[in-house]
């Protein structure tokens, strides 16, 4: 054991001198570094715990597309090398982020799923001038405070977008039979925001409704029978839930088992993460079911997506969800950014800031479809939702018909405040 303990110390001593060379700054991909060096990309994603599923989805897509890119000539002639770190609590993750920046000397960092971590990382990224592309986990509240006009941080689409779209779909499909409304959502910022969004949009469209119960469950709770019973007694017409972790299938199963699913509609903006766990036996048809930026079974999907889904299904006996698309999008965007910057510098390797400057406005082909990066470093992508059906070969429901909306219609414009925008803007159902 003792030498086990000494190991890192020795390592630290070996690093004498090396440390000062580049100090703590993130200006690592300077022209000085030869093109032939591999391009190191740090990946931070959860591997265990409630978000483990999501993390895996992203990492797998990353590995898939890296393999493809490296088969050609990588990015800008440099082969890609992934350095994967686990995303846990913000405190620990920030240490691993620094490890990527300072020790592994990565050229960019991709990933991150939980809002808490993304909020801790963003300032660190700006300060260490490390190009950082977030897959997910960007709720409104913190973002305003923590990421004012970022230089190096690029965010996925707003988390609230899915809720906006499914609220609109709910109105389209359930209008008239939406008097008694209930909500059961995870007891944290995302859950609260999505629920507020839903009720706000109902008001906007003058849907006369009564909120019969609002429930906030601790993320990862595995026994929701009491909540379900309470919902049952509240006799809602529609239940809105943005739960998206393992607790969602548990909720549906327990809801089904007391007959809550019989005469009540469901709205689930973010159920896609759990798609394969939402078995037919307890997930009814006619649920507003959100797949965010990628729906694996989309008949109109691009050949690219079809190819990926096939590979994924063969390799993992499972079907990919939107986190795969997010990861793929970030990598493609980064590639496009590097290439544009390279062209601008006529071939000599660009610095982080040059790449960062190159990315806004870029359009790339992501798994889910065409996607682009806005000037305010927020993504524009397509969102896929629809009503569930059991008419398929799987043991879980799919979408009867795929509704597609672009975030250009349902995402707050650059610089706007989400809630004010939600008030003012006109949506069409």
């Amino acid at each position: 054991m003792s030498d086990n303990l000494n190991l890192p110390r020795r390592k630290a001593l070996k690093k004498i001198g090396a440390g000062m060379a580049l100090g703590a700054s993130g200006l690592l991909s300077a022209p000085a570094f030869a093109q032939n060096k591999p391009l190191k990309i740090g990946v931070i994603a959860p591997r265990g715990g409630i978000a483990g599923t999501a993390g895996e989805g992203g990492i797998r897509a990353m590995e898939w597309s890296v393999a493809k890119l490296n088969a050609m000539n990588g990015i800008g002639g440099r082969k890609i090398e992934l350095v994967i770190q686990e995303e846990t609590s913000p405190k620990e993750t920030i240490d691993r982020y620094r490890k990527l920046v300072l020790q592994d000397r990565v050229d960019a960092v991709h990933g991150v799923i939980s809002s808490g971590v993304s909020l801790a990382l963003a300032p660190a990224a700006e300060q260490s001038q490390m190009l950082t592309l977030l897959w997910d986990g960007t709720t409104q509240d913190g973002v305003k405070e923590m990421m004012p006009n970022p230089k190096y941080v690029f965010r996925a689409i707003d988390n609230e977008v899915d809720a906006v779209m499914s609220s609109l779909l709910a109105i389209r499909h359930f209008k008239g039979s939406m008097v008694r409304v209930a909500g059961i959502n995870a007891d944290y910022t995302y859950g609260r925001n999505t629920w507020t969004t839903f009720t706000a949009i109902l008001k906007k469209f003058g849907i006369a409704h009564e909120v019969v119960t609002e429930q906030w469950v601790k993320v990862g709770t595995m026994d929701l029978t009491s909540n379900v019973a309470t919902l049952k007694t509240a006799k809602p017409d529609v239940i809105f839930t943005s739960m998206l972790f393992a607790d969602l299938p548990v909720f549906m199963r327990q809801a089904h088992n007391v007959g809550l699913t019989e005469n009540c509609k469901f709205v689930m903006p973010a159920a896609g993460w759990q798609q394969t766990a939402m078995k037919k036996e307890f997930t009814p048809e006619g649920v507003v079911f959100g797949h965010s930026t990628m729906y694996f079974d989309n008949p109109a999907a691009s050949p690219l997506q079809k190819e990926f889904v096939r590979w994924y299904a063969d390799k993992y006996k499972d079907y990919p969800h939107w986190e795969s698309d997010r990861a793929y999008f970030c990598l493609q965007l980064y590639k496009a950014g590097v290439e544009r910057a390279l062209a601008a510098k006529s071939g000599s390797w660009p610095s982080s800031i040059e790449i960062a400057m190159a990315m806004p406005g870029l359009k790339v082909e992501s798994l889910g479809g065409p996607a682009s990066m806005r000037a305010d470093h927020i993504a524009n992508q397509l969102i896929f939702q629809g009503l569930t059906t059991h008419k398929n070969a799987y043991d879980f429901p799919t979408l009867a018909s795929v509704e597609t909306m672009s975030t250009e219609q349902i995402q707050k414009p650059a610089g706007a405040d989400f809630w004010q925008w939600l008030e003012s803007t006109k949506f069409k159902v």
Partner: protein
Amino acid sequence: MSLIGILMAGVFHAAALFLLTSGLQLVFGVQRIVNLACGSLYALGAYVGISFTTWALAQGLPVPMFPLALLAAGLVVGLIGLPLERLISTIYKRPESFQLLLTFSLILVFQDVLRFFWGANPQQLANVAMHYGSVSLWGAQMPAYNVFVILLAIATAVGLGWFLGRTTLGKMLRATAENREASAAMGVNVRMVYLLVFTLGTTLSTVGGAMVVPTAAVSLQIGVDLVVEAFAVIVIGGLGSMKGAAAGALIVGLIRAAALVLYPEVEVLATYVIVLAVLVFKPSGLFGKAAV
């Protein structure tokens, strides 16, 4: 609107909690050991239960038999109590705090062992629980299996009561709990008693996990999450008391249900408030012996 449904849900939650804590209480009652890893054992039972039952059903086990498969799985993994007891026995003579430490280390180990075999994704059993359909109690619909779990908890409580109270072995355990030296002098093989009690306690947890999982799912997280609820139960009920476990479980279960109806915001906090109130006004818990 009928509150029965909510009430029953509370009782069901209580039943699950009792199955989780009864083992904890038994072990503490006899050995004065608090096993922080109880949640992990519960999770272990659930994971193994799912895998084994799924396999058994695939092998053509008639669906109505699935509880037997779960029970079998729970009982078999319960045997892990034997090596664990041997491990913990190395620190019987140390201060109580050391048990907390050792069992905490077990949590870390279990978390990754479970992850290694079952992966990061939460596991669930096919919805066989609904095979028995649901029953209607005073107008409230409830899956028959949930009622079965409640009955199982009651049976466990009664069974343990009878075992500890009536059987000679049970009396022997109680004697050991009262005074280790004396009963050793009277020829009780304390070492065997401890081995037995700890394994029994472990088995209660694993069986609990296995039997409850069809109504929900199991994730790596519950290993640490359940510890908190379990502590709430035994602090309220009183360490080492079976009555306490039952009472504590009922209180926590019903408080939660009640909070959901009255004021959902305080669902979690309410439990802690009760816990602290008990600690301040009746430190020994409702049925516990003196705390200090």
